[in-house]
């Protein structure tokens, strides 16, 4: 039952998203320019890292391919989550314009509609860049079956963690309608932090990124395993396999916050 409804929701999601893709194709030039522009910006992002390594041999003991693995995996998880459900951060706007009210009168769960709304492939640029960086970094990994499993679960769990962060922090807008920046601080902020080896930060920050905003599970812990490194900060080794737990917990917490947000929703005046 639960499974079949999940399939139905996914299908609804794809149907709505497909209509938005077609709508975007009504303006093909603008679609292509946006995607290319987006790709360029994210490419420059990695060039920044590259330039840094031109002046350093390593970053807190991590070489360029190792940092690229951290960067690529976090970036990939973020790009997937952002493409799939990025519009959830716009619920403040949906509330103000009454669009959320309209969605609430449709027989598809609100979260599915909000996530699929204005679905856009312009983040394809980031997705491509992240895949290339990750793919290149993977060639430096000494693969074993266990590492393949951890790598796959890392990407899926990373997507779930960002999904949870996006949804959870966007819910703040149910209480105060203009808090997109606040949400961004945790989602995109969290993603930026994970592009570096986390041992460059004080231990307190690492603990926070593990147990409060669990972005350390998106790449840091599983990548340590992929790279066959012992944790330079001395955190328990079990954490390197705990990404799926973190992903599921973050997502479950986010769904609870979402439900409570919808119950507290007060709509607009008219």
């Amino acid at each position, binding site marked *: 039952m639960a499974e079949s409804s999940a399939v139905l929701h996914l299908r609804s999601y794809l149907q709505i998203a497909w209509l938005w893709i077609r709508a975007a194709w009504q303006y093909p030039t603008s679609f292509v320019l946006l995607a290319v522009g987006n790709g360029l910006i994210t490419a420059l992002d990695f060039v920044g890292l590259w330039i840094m390594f031109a002046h350093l041999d390593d970053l807190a003991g991590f070489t360029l391919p190792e940092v690229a693995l951290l960067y690529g995996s976090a970036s990939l998880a973020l790009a997937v989550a952002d493409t799939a459900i990025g519009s959830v951060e716009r619920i403040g706007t949906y509330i103000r*314009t009454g669009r959320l*009210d*309209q969605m609430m*009168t449709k*027989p598809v*769960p609100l979260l599915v509609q909000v996530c699929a709304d204005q679905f856009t492939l312009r983040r394809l640029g980031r997705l491509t860049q992240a895949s290339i960086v990750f793919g290149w970094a993977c060639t430096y990994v000494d693969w074993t079956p266990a590492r393949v499993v951890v790598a796959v679960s890392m990407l899926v769990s990373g997507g779930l963690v960002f999904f949870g962060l996006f949804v959870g922090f966007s819910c703040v807008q149910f209480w105060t309608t203009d808090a997109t920046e606040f949400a961004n601080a945790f989602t995109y902020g969290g993603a930026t932090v994970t592009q570096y080896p986390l041992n460059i930060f004080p231990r307190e920050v690492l603990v926070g990124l593990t147990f409060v905003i669990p972005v350390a599970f998106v790449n840091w812990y599983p990548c340590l395993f992929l790279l066959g490194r012992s944790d330079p900060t001395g955190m328990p080794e079990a954490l390197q396999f705990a990404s799926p737990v973190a992903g599921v917990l973050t997502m479950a917490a986010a769904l609870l916050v979402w439900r409570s947000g919808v119950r507290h*929703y007060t709509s607009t005046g*008219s």
Partner: protein
Amino acid sequence: MSVTEPLIDVRDLERTFDVRRRVEGRRRRVRDSVLAVHDLTFSVDAGEMVGYIGPNGAGKSTTIKMLTGILVPTGGQVRVAGLDPSRDRVELARRIGVVFGQRSTLWWDLPLRDSFALLQKMYRIPPARYRDNLDRFVDLLDLGDQLDTPVRQLSLGQRMRGDITAALLHDPEVLYLDEPTIGLDVVSKGRLREFLRALNDERGTTLVLTTHDLQDIEALCDRVIVIDHGTSVFDGPLAGLHEQGGSTRTLVVDLVDEAPPIEVPGAVVRRVEGPRQWLSFPAEASAAPVVAAVAASYDVADLSIQEPDIEDVIRELYSRGA
């Protein structure tokens, strides 16, 4: 009396909002609780056409939002089609249609047809029924030529008809219309009203209409609920509204010659202008005895009757409620 449950059942409904208010001389804003809707009780049977009217801020939208499950009530009960709207919102959505007059649900850049096709999937309307309904509404609402036009190129009237079609494809039991004729020209308004009447006649679709256009109400609604300051101040047939509002009809008499004010039982002269006199009498009374009495005692060149202005009646009700 029918034993079936009413389609919409509202009891002691209440909704408060927390509002933060800035107070002079205080650093922090003060929290106030505002009663948007309170002590609201009414029920609507299947097949009724109800006008839900009231001034801005009276609680109309708040009520509609609780009926559709958008807002959770803070007190009292609502049931629509046997469901609790806020708890069973998604399930209820299959059985109701909602049109918010000023906001379109259609895909701006795509032809109408595409929006309709997505709705078919969202509501899981069987293909045969979908085709039937689409053909029928497109024909009745005269949308045939617009089906393949991107929505952004449609006129306001065409878009409104598109939105109404979108809300009806799944054969809802109730249709909520919020200001459906706002911004439309006279011809479009007339056509839309005709369509809604036919919908109610043929399919028994229950209609709940909020509007500022009282002609909508006069043309469509057998029953009116007037809400003011969050609670119902009148609930009954349109005719009864006149009674309660103390409204009057006016008999305009053109006499052959100028005369002193006419004196007949049951009517009073309000105005005299040369040979023309205006007599008012209660709206619920019959005009016949008044006309007969005037004709019996005076030389009458012409007579006409002006119906009461419902707008005045409602204004009167509001001011009394305040």
